[in-house]
């Protein structure tokens, strides 16, 4: 079963040259003519697929369009051309942000974030202990998140996401912080989800991790696909290109 189908996807961004967002300046611009806007093509004709039970890696330099691609697949950004088809419950963690509120306790945050991912109150209650245990944060249930380290936040965000029935998991630079033991544990959890038929799209600058866990890789640069295929081949070319 194909979980993600991306076909000829394009995405443009308009970048305003002048700051022109208050009511008065918008009113003035009606008389002075439209403001000049620069258009950048963030994604150009992107096509790839992810099968059920597959982990696909996305690699590329900063600004190559990896996060934009994830946001387009998650329907956070509107596409300007092409087609995106997803089959199943989609959960995204982009830049470790799942809506955690640092002035609330972990208990409140778990309820809050799980609701955003579509879990009912009953489901949240049933999974609460499992989320806390997986994140290894049992002793901090009633601690406010501003007192958490970035590693603790990462563990919590990942734990919440994997407990919300993902069929498609979009992970953007989730493993750039955190210790090795949790990385291993997370990798095991991903394997478990994939074995059950989920698809994972993993964005990371850690090539070792990508190589170890991804079945195939898509290499992006300036919004275009430079290469896609087996992990080993793409990473080899990517490293050569970086030298």
């Amino acid at each position, binding site marked *: 079963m194909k979980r993600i189908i991306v076909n000829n996807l394009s995405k443009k961004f308009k970048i305003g040259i002048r700051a022109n967002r208050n009511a008065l300046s918008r009113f003035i611009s009606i008389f002075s003519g439209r403001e000049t806007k620069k258009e950048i093509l963030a994604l150009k004709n992107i096509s790839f697929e992810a099968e059920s039970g597959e982990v696909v890696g996305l690699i590329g330099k900063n600004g190559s369009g990896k996060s934009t691609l994830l*946001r387009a697949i998650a329907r956070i*950004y509107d596409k300007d051309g092409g087609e995106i088809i997803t089959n199943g419950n989609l959960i995204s963690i982009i830049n470790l942000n799942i809506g955690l509120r640092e002035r609330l306790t972990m208990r409140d945050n778990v309820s809050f974030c799980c609701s*955003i*991912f579509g879990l009912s109150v009953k489901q949240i209650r049933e999974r609460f202990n499992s989320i806390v245990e997986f994140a290894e944060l049992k002793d901090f249930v009633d601690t406010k998140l501003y007192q958490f380290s970035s590693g603790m936040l990462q563990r919590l965000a990942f734990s919440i996401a994997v407990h919300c029935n993902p069929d498609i998991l979009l992970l953007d630079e989730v493993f750039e912080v955190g210790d090795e033991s949790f990385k291993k544990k997370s990798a095991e959890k991903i394997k478990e989800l994939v074995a059950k038929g989920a698809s994972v799209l993993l964005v990371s600058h850690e090539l070792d991790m990508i190589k170890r866990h991804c079945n195939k890789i898509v290499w992006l640069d300036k919004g275009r696909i430079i290469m896609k295929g087996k992990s080993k081949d793409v990473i080899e070319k990517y490293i050569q290109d970086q030298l």
Partner: protein
Amino acid sequence: MAYQKLKTFFGLSWQLAKADFKLRNEGSYLGILWYLLNPLLMFGLLFLIFSTRVGQNIPYYPLYLLLGIIIFNFFQKTTLDSTNAIIRNRSIIKSINFPRTSLVFSIVLKFLFSHVFEIFILFIFCILLKIPILGLGFYPLILIFFALFIYGACLFFSSLAVYFIDLENIWIFVSLLIWLGTPIFYAIENQSRLFTLNLFNPLYYFITISREVVIYNKMPELWMVFGMLGYTLLALIIGFIVFGKLKNKFAELI
């Protein structure tokens, strides 16, 4: 399917409202008192100034004034907060796809909590002034339509605020004009110009109907009820159309 979607929408809105409510009252067990203090101070001040002048010919003026204040408060606070809703939640909007409308509805719910506290003060006033509290029992019915009207207005303001960054400041000024133009601390009987103007003011309908029902224990006039329903529907239609048109660009613009 539709029931499931509605259940998810309300569930999420409730959780968002609960989180925001807790954040607002963080570290303060007396935080809720502030909700009561604000309308009470406003009431005390206006009562001192106007009770012997404009209030003289208005039966049960203390209740008349208090009900006007708390209804307007609910509208003003909620719509004002909605002008920040999308920008305040930019990180979550840029990371997760969830129904954006629930973010706006959660603001209505959040201020509904504090409105309930204010209604409690009204209840105490009713008892002190020996007004039958039967009318107050019908207030939730008016409140449903009022909350829906506010929800429509909030959808409109929250989406426009992404495009007009100073909308909050503009709305503070405009809502002050509405406050002065709405018969909150005065009555508009025999003032035909003000009356005509207020026909275009949705708050006039909600406040007048509430007063008729809660304070004077009377059935509201039918044309007023139609006005209330009409403005509620209009606000929802405009709100959903504008929000629906603009919501797809939120994540790119914030």
